[in-house]
């Protein structure tokens, strides 16, 4: 029972990271119907910025974290502005956007290999306090931090989307960009803002990831991004609660597989779950059943 509880909590901790990253995929998809495959690499960028600021520049941790979040938000806006906006505003087919996103991803990976080398870099200890014991149950500090931070971020995002003016503009743009524009909403700014928020969340995910698994590689965004994308699809892409739910499910499934089946099978189980869910409920767990008008 203790092993089960520990593994479930570890899974939720890992799932929190997936959830934060999945939110970025889901928000961007919700607003411009683009699967932003470069999103996974933003995590990598976020990780390297933390490393650079903490180790090379010797700045305190909190500055490195804020710096990384701001840098990633800016990177997200720049990517949207340079790579996607023209395509979006000229009604380019979705496949062009998708290929552009893959191009941006390859570009980022190679750029960071060029700057930092392709070998793994280790990240110094970030946040740590002794594990908390509840009865005979030991909970690692990183697990607690991951869960608490992700829940706080999601509450913040919920308020942002549902209560703020920008959130209303985001929802209006995602429902009907043309009508939103004709109600006085600057849809370009709204889309850029969405990229900024999504990338900032990815940077937070990057910090949590580095804290949990203290290692960085320029290609780390591939699998991490893919899994977060699976989480977003699993929960129903475009849905914010869906992305969170998908992230947690994935994390817990991975953790259980590692302890009860085999750690070699984790990825197989993750993608297996995706296949099963999509077969049974193609729109994902919380996805809306959208009928496209023909």
């Amino acid at each position, binding site marked *: 029972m203790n092993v089960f509880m520990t593994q479930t909590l570890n899974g939720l901790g890992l799932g929190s990271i997936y959830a934060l990253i999945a939110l970025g995929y889901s928000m961007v998809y919700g607003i411009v119907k683009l699967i932003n495959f470069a999103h996974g690499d933003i995590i990598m960028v976020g990780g390297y910025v933390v490393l650079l600021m903490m180790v090379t520049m010797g700045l305190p941790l909190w500055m490195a974290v804020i710096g990384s979040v701001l840098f990633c938000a800016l990177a997200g806006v720049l990517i949207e502005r340079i790579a996607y906006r023209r395509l979006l505003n000229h009604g380019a087919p979705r496949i062009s956007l998708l290929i552009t996103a893959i191009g941006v991803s390859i570009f980022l990976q190679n750029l960071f290999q060029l700057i930092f080398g392709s070998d793994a870099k280790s990240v110094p200890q970030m946040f740590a306090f002794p594990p908390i014991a509840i009865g005979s149950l030991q909970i690692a500090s990183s697990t607690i931090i991951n869960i608490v931070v992700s829940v706080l971020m999601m509450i*913040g995002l919920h*308020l*942002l989307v549902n*209560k*703020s*003016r*920008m*959130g*209303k*503009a985001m*929802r*209006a743009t995602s*429902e*009907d960009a*043309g*009508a*939103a*524009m*004709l*109600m*006085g*909403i*600057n*849809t370009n700014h709204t889309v850029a*803002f969405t990229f900024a928020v999504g990338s900032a969340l990815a940077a937070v995910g990057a910090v949590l990831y580095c804290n949990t698994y203290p290692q960085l590689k320029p290609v780390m965004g591939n699998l991490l991004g893919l899994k977060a994308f699976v989480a977003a699809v699993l929960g129903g892409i475009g849905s914010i609660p869906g992305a969170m739910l998908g992230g947690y499910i994935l994390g817990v499934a991975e953790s259980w597989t590692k302890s009860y089946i085999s750690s070699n099978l984790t990825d197989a189980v993750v993608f297996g779950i995706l296949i099963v869910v999509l077969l049974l409920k193609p729109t994902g767990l919380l996805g809306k059943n959208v009928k496209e008008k023909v």
Partner: protein
Amino acid sequence: MSKAVLKADHLGITFGGLKAVTDFNAEIGEHELVGLIGPNGAGKTTIFNLLTGVYQPTEGSVYLDGKSMAGKKPHQMVKAGIARTFQNIRLFKDMTVIENVKVAFNQHMKYSVFGGMLRLPSFWKEEDGIDGKARELLRVFNMEDLAQNTAKNLPYGQQRKLEIARALATGAKVLLLDEPAAGMNPTETMELMNAIATIRERFGISIILIEHDMSLVMKICERIIVIDYGQIIATGTPAEVANNPKVIGAYLGE
């Protein structure tokens, strides 16, 4: 006629080789209600798209209060004071009725994203103001009780009215209504006519109306512009237009 609020000066647009609208000249006075009619495919909605910045004209330009609107994007046109409704309803369906109205008030709000998230006093002050204004606007349309309903659950006629309310919430000086009575039953059309008359009184705005329901157009419009094949073929009072042989020809396919 009083001073022109909106002026279209030799407005034209070409798609590829097709001249969709040519040499469209019109002046809409303050507080005026003008009908824009013509057979299907005559270019009425294209003119609306030109007036709202959805299309950039290839010739001529639009003036609002004497200022050229050349190169303005749709959201800038709205800020300048031109708002519209759509031929096929385009509400934000998954938002509530009041959110639909509030989203259009958006551009007047000052508080920042962080103010909104942190619930700073400036946020509450403006949000309260917006909420009150949105409710007031819904009251004009007798829709206050429906404020918390999701827009897609409203009956058709109410959705049409909500679209007009949302357009008014942008603070427009000129309101463009694209077939507001389309698909309405006679009772709903009557209600709509009253609503249009009321908002014109209360908000002191100018209205351009595209409509196929001739009885509605003839009853409420002061002036009618008739177009066919993207060109103005007649303009005048309802009675003048109704007796114009060119208009009769265009409609009956002479």
